[in-house]
């Protein structure tokens, strides 16, 4: 579940705009990771058996669970590592080259 809004990149006009201390609000996310991907996982929902393995094993947490059988891939943050497709026993996820997706 993605429950944050993307933060704007901070603009500093003077030192007073710079955060106090070496600190920043947590979950302050400005940049997506989509550009990291060569292949993207594509879900064939007709083959999905709802085993949850893709959701469980994504190192980026980029596969979200909508309900017990619907999994949604957050392509802004999926890095295309292929773990989900590899671990999907029914073969519901295939890795497709970005320019062919």
């Amino acid at each position, binding site marked *: 579940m993605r429950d944050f809004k993307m933060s704007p990149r901070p603009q500093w006009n003077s030192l007073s705009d710079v955060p106090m201390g070496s600190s920043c609000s947590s979950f302050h996310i400005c940049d997506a990771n989509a550009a990291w991907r060569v292949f993207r996982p594509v879900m064939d929902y007709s083959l999905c058996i709802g085993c949850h393995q893709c959701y469980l094993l994504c190192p980026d947490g980029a596969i979200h669970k909508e309900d*017990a059988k619907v999994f949604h891939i957050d392509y802004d943050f999926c890095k295309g*590592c292929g773990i989900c497709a590899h671990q999907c026993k029914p073969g519901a996820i295939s890795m497709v080259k970005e320019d062919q997706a």
Partner: protein
Amino acid sequence: MIKKLNARNIDAKECFYGHKACGGCGESLALRLALKVLGEEAYLSLPAGCMAAVSFIYPNMAFKNNAVITPFASTAAVATGIAAGLEALGKEAPLSVGFAGDGGTADIGIQSLSGAIDRGEKFIYICTDNEAYMNTGIQKSGLTPFGAATTTTPAGKAIHGCVTEKKNMFEIAAAHGITYAATASIGYPEDFLNKVQKAKECDGPAYIHIYTPCPTGWGHGSKITVDLAKEVVDTGLWFLAEYEDGEFRLNRKPGDFKPVADHLKRQARFRHLSDEEISQIEVMRDRKWEKMLKNWG
């Protein structure tokens, strides 16, 4: 009775997101799963290392929680300082958790970890073990296994990779008389989730040592990270165990080990090994298991 955790009933909320770890990073999976159990209330301490480097790069902060990068040697000290501070400020049941890699735990951080366990205050320490200093470019640590090539133990003509065996951090932690200690692997994620749950519930320091393959450091395809982490348990090169109430317990006693050679050859770091060296690794494994089965069986 605590509900057994599994893929279906874990919290859908993500507390570790948008981080810049390599694709297929085992360590980041371990953190993500741990936070599913620990929740966003937990206060996190991480030393300078991969997980800190990929999740605190201004202006991108990947943790939903309160989190701090600690001096490299100081994960456990900062975590217990946080726990003490929160307790002194009157917070009820504060949860302070340290995450550090193999080097940050078994080498530079072992002193502060020992001191923190010894103080006996409640905190959780999770060692994400990928068997070398990955953040600095794959140098040997105290947890690099025998035979592994790293950038400081290359597969040279005279010396063929790492010549030492892994330090036994699990037993070192247990030897303090710690409240709870366990080993885990991201190849057995549900086992790990439940061990984190136990650590969260226990009244005192807890140590979990989880095996987390690193595609970049080990030289394997990013998609097989979880496979390798399962295989390593099935080949007997890693083990799942707990230390609780002063007793050791093996969680899995494999009948027949899966072949070691196939597992090792899937990782570039072991490809130079001769058959003889692989047999040597099997002998080491068998010796270790003989002891574990005798003492903890």
